């Protein structure tokens, strides 16, 4: 996607709102996809230019929300919910199974840059706990014995 295409796409989204500022969240999401899953400084300039805002404003908005990443991330993401219902369903065992399978701790990316592993707050699928979002798609329930296959699937797909 060229910068011109990005501008056009963001302006098209902005036209759906009475105030174009409302397009900041969708624009940041698209910018993040263009920049390998995170928002480098130039991404804020692009979003700001498309919406006639300042880069600082766009960064201030992005830093508020958990789904925008301000540092490089892996190609894939694995996110284990550890809130109350998942905790009661032994989510910690799932966390430890991923740590052991991936060789990283919570919040880290594998050395090859492939997979970022996170603990996240409630994904709201509590009745099917433990819940794991793999590349933002929910899997549930995920038990420690399911973990090697998930990791293998991600490594095979990349």
């Amino acid at each position: 996607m060229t910068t011109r295409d990005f501008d056009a796409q963001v302006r098209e989204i902005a036209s759906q709102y009475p105030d174009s500022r409302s397009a900041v969240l969708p624009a940041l999401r698209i910018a993040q996809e263009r920049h390998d899953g995170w928002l480098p400084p130039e991404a804020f300039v692009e979003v700001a230019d498309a919406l006639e805002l300042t880069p600082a404003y766009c960064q201030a908005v992005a830093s508020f929300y958990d789904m925008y990443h301000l540092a490089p991330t892996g190609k894939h993401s694995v996110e284990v919910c550890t809130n109350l219902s998942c905790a009661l369903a032994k989510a910690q065992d799932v966390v430890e199974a991923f740590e052991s399978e991936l060789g990283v701790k919570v919040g880290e990316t594998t050395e090859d840059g492939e997979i970022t592993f996170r603990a996240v707050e409630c994904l709201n699928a509590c009745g099917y706990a433990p819940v794991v979002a793999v590349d933002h798609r929910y899997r549930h329930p995920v038990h420690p014995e399911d973990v090697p296959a998930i990791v293998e699937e991600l490594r095979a797909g990349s």
Partner: protein
Amino acid sequence: MPARSMLLAGVEEHDLTTVEGYRAVGGYEALPKARAMTSDDLIAELQAANLRGRGGAGFPMGRKASLIDRKSGRPTYLVVNADESEPGAFKDREVVAKAPQRLIEGCLISAHAIESRHVFIYIRGEYLTEYEILQAAVDEARAAGLFDPVEITVHRGAGAYICGEETALLDSLEGRRGQPRPRPPFPPVQGLYGEPTQINNVCTIASVPEIIAMGAAEWAKIGAESSPGTAIFSISGNVVQPGNYELELGTPMRELIYDWAGGIPDGRELKGVIPGGSSVPILTPDQIDVSLDYDSIGALGSFFGSASLIVVDDRCCMVQLALRAAKFYMHESCGKCTPCREGTRWQVQLLEKIEAGEATHADLDLLSSVGSRILGKSLCALGDFAVYPVQSYMRNYPDEFRAHVDQGGCPFHGQSSIEGIVAPSDLHVHAAVEAHA
């Protein structure tokens, strides 16, 4: 009480993500009926139904609509809150994924009531699959010519619990950091883009087509007298069959836990029930012979909330549970109000000290005192939500908190069911400590 399907009626037999599938169960028949009514008559009908907001506060939906200024000539907006983030809740997700056309018909009818031309559905960013289903359903309904003169825009959040709070949601929808606004002015007077705005939960809006289809007088006979209709009860935690159960309001809590959800697994004992999502005060086993409705649960000092029950059995350490809940609210505090921003951190620090066996009885008193300094002292309810779990666990399980102090450690000796559970906020806290070191 038997199960009663209204919000999820037909989802097993038909594909309610499509207009055709929804029409097969009588869908989109209420819309022309509603559009033939004046907005005054439609609002009167909604008020007669006494549909109470399913997002948690229980404010009557029809009364909310009546507060919208429709005479000023300014645009009015309907905003549907699909930012489902309360730990324990997963009902909106099911409606969006399985019956989005019912939600869309509810949007169109509710928009007619307040003479709005633009509806926004704010769906949490993590609900990616659900967003795709909803967006496809909206596009299909628009193409089928059902919208005119209304437009529906689906807006994705980006990961922030606070955006489920209605004024924070408005700021987020306007392209800002999602932080609550002072009230007054309330959204019906000055909401989205400063214009009169009605904000309702997914299940509230999805209840509307059936009210119009059967008539408010008949609909109001379903459920509890003070809280008519059905709710999708999300039940999770230590039960044999967790999941969503759509039941009439007024169903006994014991029936939901033991008959529908199969009771407590592994022959364990019930220890407590968090009845409305993690933010509400916990109930003890002697309190579960209560009717599941707003007023009955309110009379016990807790809240019906988002109809989301988290069941806890005797394997769980309540200090650990309080600490995990407290870490969540600390992580999600938006930072705008000092009592909430700072108080949620104090709670976590004190609970960590108690769990580690390093606290004194004075620390328990201090924890109580911190709670009372947060409660009611912030712009929105998040601060209160951070306090209710901690204070209610301390109140209902005082011996367990004291035992941590007296024994100099956790009385579960590493065997609690949630032992060692990590939280996303652990990383920030530890990173900050290392940065200082």
